[in-house]
């Protein structure tokens, strides 16, 4: 088991390395080769060639490409001190893990990400709680009452939220609860540590938007899995043993039906941790998603790269966690 995890972690490192390589190539090397040096982005209108050269030097763009990449990777592990903007104020400190220095934010990329991450984490956790409890609850219930009222009602719920575009839903929520009923103040994110109530008020609509949309999907999946599991032979055996229906459903059916769903949930959560771009934008929540949007708008390459690598880290790690959990639940899966 431990050996397996170590092997998987090594594999994850390899994946992350490749992701970094590709991102690096895409954002740093390709523009230079096509003659559009990223330095122009920082140099204002009609820059002098010296200024460009200076900035390029400050970004390390004048070094050979392999060296640049080496420096970048080394920065992630050990931090770097060689970053300057080529102007008078000299060097920009960037302790490990250093994903470069953002000239737009005047701060190391990692600090920005660290700053914004709690917002995204808050969104993700809240939304996941809603979609897992609601989705699985509705799915199990409708499978157990197949064809009954609860099942049909949940079908309506599922259909509604699967077909309702989430941007429409989000804007609808915003107009009804914030501008219409005025139950909620116009959103202004406040950290949980500062004021739990304001934190909650700022996030609830985002949770509902993501939570309900995903809940519909999860309800559909859960329902299908539950129905399939309930018709398995081992469920018939459990009933034939004389087990109470509650035990049959909880211990025998749900464990088998929900295992694959938790796998999917793990990956979905990891994906969301990389930033809920749309929702953060609509509700002005300054998380990683919004950061990404801003960075693209400002063409802030180091931030875009940093975010890409960090979100792939989430996915890679989630993959490992999910696989290990799966093998803990299903004895037929062996990790070796």
């Amino acid at each position, binding site marked *: 088991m431990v050996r397996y995890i170590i092997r998987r972690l090594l*594999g994850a490192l390899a994946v992350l390395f490749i992701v970094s390589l590709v991102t690096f190539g895409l954002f740093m090397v390709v523009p230079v080769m096509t003659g559009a040096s990223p330095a122009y982005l920082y140099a204002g209108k009609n820059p002098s060639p010296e200024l460009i050269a200076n900035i390029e030097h400050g970004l390390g763009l004048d070094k050979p490409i392999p060296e640049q990449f080496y420096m970048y990777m080394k920065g992630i592990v050990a931090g770097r001190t060689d970053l300057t903007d080529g102007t008078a104020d000299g060097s920009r400190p960037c302790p490990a893990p250093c994903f470069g220095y953002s000239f737009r934010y005047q701060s190391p990329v990692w600090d920005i990400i660290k700053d914004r991450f709690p917002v995204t984490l808050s969104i993700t956790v809240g939304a996941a709680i809603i979609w897992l409890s609601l989705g699985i609850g509705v799915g199990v219930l409708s499978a157990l009452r197949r064809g009954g009222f609860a099942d049909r009602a949940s079908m309506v719920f599922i259909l509604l939220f699967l077909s309702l575009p989430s941007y429409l839903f989000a804007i609808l929520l915003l107009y009804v609860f914030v501008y219409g009923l005025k139950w909620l103040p116009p959103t202004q994110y406040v950290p949980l540590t500062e004021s739990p109530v304001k934190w909650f008020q700022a996030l609830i609509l985002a949770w509902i938007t993501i939570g309900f949309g995903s809940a519909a999907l999860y309800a559909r999946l859960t329902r299908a899995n539950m129905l399939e599991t309930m018709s398995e032979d081992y469920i018939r055996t459990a009933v034939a043993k004389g087990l109470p229906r509650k035990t049959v459903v909880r211990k025998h059916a749900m464990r088998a039906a929900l295992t694959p769903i938790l796998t999917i949930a793990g990956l979905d959560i990891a994906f969301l941790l990389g930033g809920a771009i749309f929702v953060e934008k609509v509700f002005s929540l300054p998380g990683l998603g919004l950061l990404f949007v801003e960075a693209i708008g400002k063409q802030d390459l180091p931030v875009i790269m940093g975010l890409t690598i960090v979100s792939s880290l989430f996915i890679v790690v989630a993959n490992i966690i999910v696989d290990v959990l799966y093998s803990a639940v299903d004895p037929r899966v*062996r990790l*070796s």
Partner: protein
Amino acid sequence: MTITTSTESGTGVPLRPDALLQVRNLRKHFPITQGILFKRQVGAVKAVDGITFDIANGETLGLVGESGCGKSTAGRTIAKLLEPTSGNIIFNGADITGYSRSQMRPLRSEMQMIFQDPFSSLNPRHTVGTIVGAPYRVQGSLSDKDIKTRVQGLLERVGLNPEHYNRYPHEFSGGQRQRIGVARAIALQPKLIICDEPVSALDVSIQAQVVNLLEDLQSEFGIAYIFVAHDLSVVRHISDRVAVMYLGQIMELADRDTLYSQPRHPYTHSLLSAVPLPDPDSGSRRERILLTGDLPSPINPPSGCVFHTRCWKAQDRCKVEVPLVREISAGHQIACHFPEDRPVFGQGGQTIHGPAPTDQELAAQERDRDLARGGAVTGENIAHETELGWQKRQD
């Protein structure tokens, strides 16, 4: 191409040079590998481990044995759906062992296969016309109109309504689907059809219909069959000669009447005595040989005689010395140090028990199961859909 058909391979078995199919020392091992990037082989499933036999034109060879003993693998390897590990397959005078897929293609018209599961062996998205006409289309020499006429003729021949040309497999019952499979197999008038449990999934009454159909087609077109089945009574009915397999090897091979009335191998005796007879009083008239446990794993088969762990006649010699296949009378081969002489159903009344597995054997079996589970067992399927029909999965 000429073949040297001396008595090779140390089996004292005379060969029949006129045979349609000669199988010599055929092996098929599925490697078990471990590792993600660099696979290393940690063992092999010895599914078929050195079998030798001949089939003449128009003859039926039955292949019986417990599940997992390698019957299907043998059939698939002979049809070159699986790449043989070693040995020779000589079909119609040509050694096809090393033939590539494209070399095999012209031979597909002469050697066909029928599968067990009438539900998964037909492509659900193709009409009956497409399925049965596929062999003609692969050959590419007939117009669509001719193909349709031929296919309808075939459907009629196997007892299906030619009007059902445009229907899909799910609209047919199990027995009818099996007829579709038969129609496809005989489309090009093959010389050999390998039937892998063609009637096992069918009800008795339907089973008899398909068996009769296969027999009629054989006498009409002179087709030879390899008939794989685990039902000993069906095999007796349809076969001219019968080979009994155990753990990838042939234990006994004889003509039908000899095998069923004077079997000499202890395993054949055990199998025959285990068949329940539709006669309530037979129990008291017949001697029963009860084997203990299950088939050992084909990953590490027992030493010496592979049957010795369950054999009711086993002696010390059996554990160390592999019994060679030998001919004990004309056309009757067995692999056993101590052939049995008793009449087939014994004297009656009593029960003989096979030895119980030792703790050592049990532990070894468990190890093998773990190995097979932990590693990836790979078996490549090298034939193409239209060549031998659609297969959902390999079993």
